[in-house]
């Protein structure tokens, strides 16, 4: 089996799973309980938070545990809107944000907020100039993803941060779900990023885990009210086993990160170069290091619908997806490709290949062989 759908989800690491099982069996107390069982769970939770903060080079008090990317995005967007509604009701997003961001904003639109969608160029990136023009006195939030989940473009986060230095009151949220282990996202006191969303299952932790980075001094209203867990930011009994497992997964993924990124980049470049040579194949992802994530490759074989290609590859035990996993079951074509002005007929043919740190060059070579054969098989069909 060749699993090239790591942007949808990753396989859980064995050591991470071992932690999850052990904590579930042994440290199952509620961290809020006063007794020993509770204390032990609280102590582990605390230590997991410290470790994550250390790995991300931020303060432990800046880490809030969530159920994953969707919750993090919802919280960042709606939490900012509620918290800062007295100061303004204008929000700026890129047009290629994940649905968790876009749909959150749409809900706010119904409540009277004003949303500006920044267009992207053919290269799939927003520009700082466009953002500068979109900012208004009543802008309260700018939300731009670090790495696009469909095409893998790296957005100009540092440059945007630089621009936003001039607008200290605007919250800057970065959906970093695809970024862990793929790029160096600078957080902390010297970064302009105020909020960043992370999801555990994209880096070999379990589904239902994630964390939000919220810079010290910034405030967002809670979405989940209740017992006051997570410093009153996110109520609900903590998923201690999931959190401990995620802390371990994060440490593991970030160990030797530079080497892991380089390896994925090498495979990515190889695939890019091979696919480029094939007739009727169109690549939507580039291979410029600064602008393209090392793990996502979006392309199409003209005339063959993405869905057909996914199933054809599946027969050969190769797994990838039609653009994002979220939109692949509904018939919708990729919104990112649409924003990049790719014609619908071509966008319908797009597939997304996504690597992890465990992907190998051998797998990539096998994939190319199989794909070449498929191209030949299909060559009678498209004209």
């Amino acid at each position, binding site marked *: 089996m060749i699993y090239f759908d790591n942007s949808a989800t990753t396989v859980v690491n064995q050591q991470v799973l071992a*932690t999850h099982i052990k904590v579930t069996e042994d440290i199952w107390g509620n961290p809020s309980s006063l007794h020993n069982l509770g204390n032990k769970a609280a102590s*582990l939770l*605390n*230590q997991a938070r410290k470790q994550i903060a250390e790995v991300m080079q931020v303060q432990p008090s800046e880490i809030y545990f969530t159920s994953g990317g969707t919750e993090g995005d919802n919280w960042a967007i709606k939490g900012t809107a509620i918290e800062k509604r007295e100061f303004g009701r204008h929000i700026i997003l890129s047009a290629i944000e994940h649905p968790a961001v876009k749909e959150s904003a749409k809900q706010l639109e119904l409540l009277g907020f004003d949303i500006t969608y920044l267009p992207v160029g053919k290269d799939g990136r927003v520009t700082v100039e466009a953002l500068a023009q979109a900012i208004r006195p009543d802008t309260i939030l700018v939300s731009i993803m670090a790495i696009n989940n469909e095409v893998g473009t790296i957005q100009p986060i540092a440059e945007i941060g630089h621009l936003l230095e001039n607008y200290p009151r605007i919250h800057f949220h970065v959906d970093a779900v695809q970024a862990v282990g793929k790029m160096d996202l600078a957080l902390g006191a010297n970064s302009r990023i105020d909020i960043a969303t992370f999801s555990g299952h994209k880096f070999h932790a379990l589904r239902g885990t994630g964390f939000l980075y919220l810079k010290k001094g910034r405030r967002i209203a809670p979405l989940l009210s209740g017992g006051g867990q997570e410093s009153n930011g996110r109520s609900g009994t903590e998923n201690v086993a999931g959190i401990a497992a995620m802390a371990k997964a994060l440490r593991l993924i970030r160990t030797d990160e530079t080497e892991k990124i380089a390896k994925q980049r090498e495979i990515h470049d190889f695939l890019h170069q091979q696919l480029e040579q094939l007739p009727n194949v169109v690549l939507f992802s580039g291979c410029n290091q600064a602008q393209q994530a090392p793990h996502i490759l979006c392309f199409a074989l003209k005339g063959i619908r993405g869905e057909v290609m996914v199933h054809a590859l599946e027969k050969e035990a190769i797994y990838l997806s039609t653009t994002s996993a979220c939109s692949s079951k509904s018939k919708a074509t990729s919104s990112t490709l649409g924003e990049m002005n790719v014609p619908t007929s071509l966008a319908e043919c797009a597939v997304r290949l996504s690597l992890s740190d465990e992907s190998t060059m051998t797998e990539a070579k096998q994939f190319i062989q199989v794909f070449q054969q498929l191209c030949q098989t299909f060559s009678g069909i498209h004209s």
Partner: protein
Amino acid sequence: MIHYDRVMIRYGELSLKGKNKKSFINRLVQNVRKTLHDFPEIKIYGERDRMFLDLHGANSAVVIERLKDVFGIQSYSPVIQVAQDIEQVEEKVVALVQSQFEEGMTFKINTKRSDHSFYMDTTEINHYLGGAVLRNVEGIKVQVKKPDLTIRVEVRKEGIFISSETILGAGGLPVGSGGRSVLMLSGGIDSPVAGYLAMKRGVEIIAVHFYSPPYTSEQSLQKAKDLTAKIAAYSGSIQFITVPFTEIQEEIKKSVPEGYLMTVTRRMMMRITDIIREQQRGLAIVNGESLGQVASQTLPSMVAINDVTNTPIIRPVVSMDKNEIIEVAKKIDTFDLSIQPFEDCCTIFAPPAPKTKPKLENARKFEARLEVDALIERSIAGLEVEEIKVGQDSSAAAKADFMDLL
């Protein structure tokens, strides 16, 4: 990063202390050795006027950082040692200036020569090295009076010694040079500060904590230990003694009127502390009492409590404002720990309205209802003693506990 070969330490008030000087220096040597316990390669020479550390390759940055907390050090200078070779001196001096240079800085070279057989004299050396710095460090100027940077060069038989920085030490007296005392450590803001200040004056501390489970939690005990680990930075390690106090508190609660609960409780604590002091051959008791903050801290209250012993009671924070105490607590990094909300021995049975002016006779009278000696004997029989070293706090323990999980 410049690597240094030696550190020269200047003694603080030590220089004044005539006859005792030798024992003071020995104590400081011991304390420095304890602080640098994980660098066995370092040789320490406690000479009459100065102390020298020969680092023998030990990480000088770590050593320099650790020495900041050692009481009895007025100031210290990291030193580079080279052979009697002016070119080697030149190379090191230039590197040293480059590492510290900031826009617009001035400097001078200050050479001393105890080995007069060296072929250059001090003026020649000053000129030679000054010229080298001017050539290699762009924008720097020479200034003889009050330069920003003074490079000291000392030519001796065994080599040439170069230093530039003088780092301010913690001052005070070497911990232990002033004898041993017992600190009553609650877990609040004041008592760790009191302990720190006593240590600064050369007093070795043994920490005593009163523990009343289930009225006080294990976390409150852990908090007291974590505070001890913090102030252990100033002496290397501290003995921590846990006193079982539940029975005594329950008995007091049963027999003593509310207004005198606190006074009698404190009298019992003082008695027990005094017995521990005697066992440990301490000379005094240190506590965190200050005047007038809470009902227990009025002068009449002090009289009623102090009544149980003739042992000197040192109250280092007695005349400080709360804000002044907090400032010190923040400096020694105990404040954030101290304000964690756990019940401790001082708050748990706190009556709604303690007497601000308890009468000594009343305190004695009410206390007579207790079997004082028997209660104390049982408590003393249950003492637990452990040694807490710097860095040995609960977060380090948690880190170790969960290492395999995380």
